[in-house]
């Protein structure tokens, strides 16, 4: 202990300068407040979680239903992003057309839109009397609101921008010059996309999918507005938490704890070098 201290002392004695002085209180105090605001609730959530009862509560019927639905909806959302969002990202990254800047701006609106507004917007389009919803109902007898499909649509609506943003960036940075090379070698654009652009943008695709998945897991506002909160069909983990807070706060904390753990796992995944390399 003493030798270690002594070593550090001599080290400090040998190298001087390079320090610009103490951090001022005017910055230190608000910084500590901000950190406390972010950290304390998470710590209290962990402490207040009824750990003894944890697995019993996770196993209860409504929680299992909500877990299953959340898993299903979030995976379906990721699939929708992969299948629909990747081509959109490619279009924005590679094709010049009138209104591209406008389209990109519109695609990004859900990033900042209050989720409840997203839900209202979805009702105006796909609701029973909506522009698309009415003919769907009249011709095919399909009504979307308050179904599991509505959950997936709401989740996709709010998650897609994260995905498109990540993949478009990856496609741009992976370079159009490779597309030119592929063209001189006789590849059509589909082949080039499949064999060159997409593999090179893969880190972005993975990162975008993780972001979209995380966004879908926590989706509340758009879901409850457009799909409602029916156990078994539209009740996801966040809407279950909302319901249980009023009846059984302990269940709410347990389910919140599950979402916290999953969020931290996503964050860890995204910080992985493999994902940030692109």
């Amino acid at each position, binding site marked *: 202990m003493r030798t270690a201290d002594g070593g550090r002392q001599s080290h400090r004695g040998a190298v001087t300068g390079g320090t610009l002085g103490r951090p001022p209180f005017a910055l230190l105090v608000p910084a500590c407040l901000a950190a406390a605001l972010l950290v304390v609730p998470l710590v209290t959530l962990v402490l207040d979680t009824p750990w003894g009862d944890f697995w019993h509560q996770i196993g209860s019927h409504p929680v299992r239903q909500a877990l299953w639905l959340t898993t299903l909806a979030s995976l379906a959302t990721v699939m929708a992003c992969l299948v629909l969002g990747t081509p959109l990202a490619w279009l924005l990254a590679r094709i010049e057309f009138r209104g591209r800047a406008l389209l990109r701006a519109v695609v990004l609106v859900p990033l900042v839109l209050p989720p409840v507004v997203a839900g209202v917007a979805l009702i105006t389009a796909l609701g029973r009397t909506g522009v698309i919803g009415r003919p769907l109902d009249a011709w095919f007898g399909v009504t979307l609101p308050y179904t599991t499909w509505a959950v997936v649509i709401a989740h996709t609506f709010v998650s897609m921008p994260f995905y498109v943003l990540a993949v478009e960036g990856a496609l741009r940075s992976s370079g159009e*010059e490779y597309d030119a090379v592929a063209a*001189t070698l006789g590849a059509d654009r589909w082949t080039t996309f499949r064999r060159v652009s997409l593999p090179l943008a893969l880190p972005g695709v993975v990162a975008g999918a993780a972001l979209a998945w995380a966004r879908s897991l926590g989706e509340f506002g758009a879901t409850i507005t457009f799909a409602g909160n029916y156990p078994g069909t539209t009740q996801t983990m966040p809407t279950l938490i909302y319901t249980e807070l009023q009846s059984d706060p302990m269940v709410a904390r347990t389910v919140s704890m599950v979402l916290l753990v999953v969020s931290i796992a996503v964050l860890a995944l995204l910080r992985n070098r493999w994902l940030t390399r692109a």
Partner: protein
Amino acid sequence: MSAGLVARLEVPGRVHAEVTAEPGEVVAVIGPNGAGKSTLLKAVAGLVPSRGEISVGGESWSQPPRPVRDRSVGMAFQGQQLFPHLSAVDNVAFGPRSRGVPREHADRAANDWLERFGVGDLARRRPGQLSGGQAQRVSIARALATDPRLLLLDEPFAGLDIGVATALRLELARHLTSYDGITLLVTHDAIDALTLADQVWVLDAGEVVQVGPPAEVAAQPRTDHVARLVGLNVLEDQGRFMSFSPTLVTVSLAEPTGSARHRWSGVVTSLAPHGDAIRLLVTGERDLLADVTPAAVAELELVPGRRVWLSVKETAVRTYRADSA
């Protein structure tokens, strides 16, 4: 119609070129930076939009405009641009497979190409695991693997060590003799033009200013750039060019009298060893090169900033007209 390349292309504001080449020919495209060499190649490949006409092997590529992938070109750019996520063999097989050759055949052909370029044992490596010279070999093999009518090489030796570049140059020369398509080779190196090319196109400020066999272009350069490349002084006067070797220039401190008809005054701006001699760059009305012995440098106290007279005998000067080449 010609069996080779006939092009009258204009990339607005960048390149204007009227050129032809015969099948089997290797054309060196030379000129200073920004002269439009790469742009010309890209316009031929269809990678940059251009006006005008181009036909290859009697087929028009401009009427109607042919998309890049249907032009029979193989390109190797400087800096290789191999697909970083594919192995060497997959890079080479990419072209044939894109054109519908079954995977097995394409892979076998790709391996053959890599063997031919002496990198067969590196087939499974990714580009990141190859040296510059190896990657450039793979790149050229990839360009040739589609059996293109036109092979477009944009400074294939740039950025390579001198030894590696020399070895690759020899290999390429061997391959090009058996290649029956047309090769356009952008280069900064007089050696490439003189050793590999059947024909030289000299570009300057987007225009093709001289076309001819390498020896002729080297002997009768019309631009300062080419003159510097081949180490000649060249002067233009009313459509007449005079060229002479720096070794035949006499340097003196006083204005020369006597038989030397051509004389210029200028200031020494740089000195550099050139073989056994010292090469001076003298800046006056024109930039001129003069080779002198180290003894003369000491005797005349030639340092940058020194004002000197250059003269050259009439018999040392080769004179030619702009339209003779």
